[in-house]
C-alpha cells in the first residue's frame, strides 16, 4: 500500500531538506509521536476491546476468549493469536481478499512483541494439560491508514488485552466448566512498540503515510517495562547502519516509556 501512496517529488525534497535541519513537515520533533488516543471497552460483545487513534491512523482491536486444544509442543500453555486485517475501507489503495504480505508481516510483528514480552501469562491459561486450554484471539481491524500501522495496532492489542475480562473456568471430573465469575485475563507486562523510519540519514519516530512513502528503511523495536528489547523487525528493501540500530534501541526505550504511561493511564 505504501508503494501506491504518491508524494510529489517537490514535497519529498522539502521533507528531506527539513529533516537535515531536524524538522518535520507536520512540525513534530524527530522523536515525537503523533497525538495518541486510546479508548477501551468500545465493543460490548468482545471480552476486551480498544480503539487507538494515532494521528489519522485508526485501529480497533477486539479480544475473544474461548477454550480449545493446546499446540502439541506447548501442552501446558494457553493459546494467544494476534491477527490483523487491513480493511478495504481503510485506504483508497486497500483491496479485499486474502491477507497481503504486508498484513501478514504486520500481524506477526505485533504478535511477536506481545508474545515475547510474556505480556499474557499463558501458563495460567492451562486447564487440562495437553487437552484443554483457554484460547485468546485478538483480531485487529485497520480502519484508517495514515502510516505506522505497527505501533497503532500494537497499542490497540495491548490496551484491549489489559482491559479484557473472561469467565472463570474450572475443571470438574476431567471436564472444563465455565462459571459465572468474571476474572481479568492474566496480564503481567506492557510491551510498547516504537517504529522509526529512515529518510535521508535521519531516523524519525512514528512516520505518517507521506513519510512512509518517502522512507528507505523502517525499523520496529518493542521494549518491555524494564527497558529490555523483546522484539524487533527491520523492513523495506534497504539497509541500516550498526550505529543507527543502537540509536533506534535507545530511542525506542525512551519513547516507549512515555507511551507505556499513556497506555496504563487509558486502561485504568
Amino acid at each position, binding site marked *: 500500500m505504501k508503494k501506491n501512496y504518491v508524494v510529489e517529488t517537490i514535497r519529498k525534497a522539502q521533507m528531506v531538506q527539513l529533516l537535515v535541519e531536524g524538522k518535520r513537515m507536520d512540525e513534530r520533533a524527530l522523536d515525537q509521536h503523533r497525538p495518541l488516543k486510546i479508548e477501551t471497552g468500545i465493543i460490548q460483545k468482545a471480552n476486551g476491546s480498544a480503539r487507538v487513534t494515532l494521528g489519522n491512523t485508526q485501529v480497533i482491536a477486539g479480544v475473544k476468549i474461548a477454550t480449545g486444544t493446546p499446540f*502439541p*509442543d506447548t501442552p501446558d500453555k494457553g493459546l494467544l493469536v494476534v491477527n490483523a486485517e487491513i480493511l478495504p475501507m481503510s485506504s483508497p489503495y486497500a483491496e479485499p481478499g486474502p491477507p497481503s*504480505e504486508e498484513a*501478514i*508481516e504486520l*500481524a*506477526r510483528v505485533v504478535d*511477536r512483541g506481545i*508474545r*515475547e*514480552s510474556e505480556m499474557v501469562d499463558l501458563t495460567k491459561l492451562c486447564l487440562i494439560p495437553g487437552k484443554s486450554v483457554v484460547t485468546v484471539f485478538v483480531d485487529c481491524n485497520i480502519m484508517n491508514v495514515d502510516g505506522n500501522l505497527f505501533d497503532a495496532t500494537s497499542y490497540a492489542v495491548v490496551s484491549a488485552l489489559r482491559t479484557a475480562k473472561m469467565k472463570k473456568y474450572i475443571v470438574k471430573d476431567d471436564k472444563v466448566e465455565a462459571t459465572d465469575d468474571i476474572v481479568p485475563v492474566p496480564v503481567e507486562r506492557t510491551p510498547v512498540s516504537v517504529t522509526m523510519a529512515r529518510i535521508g540519514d535521519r531516523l524519525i519516530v512514528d512516520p505518517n503515510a507521506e513519510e512512509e512513502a518517502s522512507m528507505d528503511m523502517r*525499523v520496529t*523495536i518493542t521494549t*518491555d517495562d*524494564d*527497558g*529490555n*528489547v*523483546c*522484539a*524487533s*523487525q*527491520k*523492513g*523495506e*528493501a*534497504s*539497509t*541500516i*547502519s*550498526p550505529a543507527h*540500530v*543502537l540509536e533506534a*534501541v*535507545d530511542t525506542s*526505550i525512551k519513547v516507549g516509556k512515555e507511551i507505556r504511561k499513556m497506555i496504563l493511564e487509558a486502561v485504568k
Partner: protein
Amino acid sequence: MEGLRLENKKKKLIDDKGKRLDGRKWDELRPISLQVGLMKNADGSAYIEWGKNKIMAAVYGPKEVHPKHQVLPNRALLRCRYHMAPFSVDERKNPAPSRREIEISKVIREALVPAVIVEDYPRTAIEVWVEVLQSDGGSRVAGITAASLALADAGINMRDLVVGCSCGIIDDHVVADLDDTEDKEGSGDMPVAIMPNLGQVSLLQVDGIFTRDQFKKAFELAIEKGKQVYAMQREALTSKFFGGEPMSTEVEEVAE
C-alpha cells in the same frame, strides 16, 4: 533426576565449563559448508549446510516479467520464495506456504535487494528460490547466505554479498549461532544479515528478551560472526571459478 528436570522444565543449555549441548563454545559457529553451482538448469545456485540445515538456493534471471503489470520500468523486480520441504522438520509440515514462510520470504527479499544492482536490469524479473531441505536453527540466515551466493553465481551485478548469522540468549548468556534446541529452549534470538564490505545491516529481527547490553553484545557478535561466514562464501565462489585456488597477486602481475 529425570523428575527434577521435568519439574524445572528447563534443560541446562550451557554447562559449568561454558560448553553448550553440542560441545561448542559460546561464540563458536556450527560447521558450515558451501557449494556453488550445483543446479544445472538454474542460472545460479548455491547449497549450504550449516549445522543440520541443508538449504538449496537457486536463481533464475534476469528474465521477462510475468504478469506484465508487475514490470518496473527502471529496475529489476526481485522475487523471493523461502519454502520448507514437508520432510524438513520433525512433524510433517504442510507444503502450502505458512504465514511464517511468507514473512521470511519478505525479509529475505528485503535483505537481498540492497545488494543487487537492480537498476542494471530494468523491466526484468530476478527469481530467488530458497528451499529448506532440512531445518535446524537459523535457517533464514543460512538461506540468505546461500541466496546471495546463488545471485553472484548467476552473474548478477552486486554491490556486495549478503551474509547472515543469528545470535541469541541461552541460560542468560549471549551466544552465537543458535541451533534448533537452543532456539526453542533459549530466551532470545536475533537473526542479522550484513553486507560486510559496505558495513550495512540488511536484515534485523529480534524475538525474545534482551537487555540493552545483551542487545549490543549479541548484535556486534552477529556482525563479527557474519564476517567469518563471509570468508567461507568468498572461498566457495573462488573455488568454483578459479579451481579452488584463491585469487593470488601473481595473476595481476602477469596481467601487467
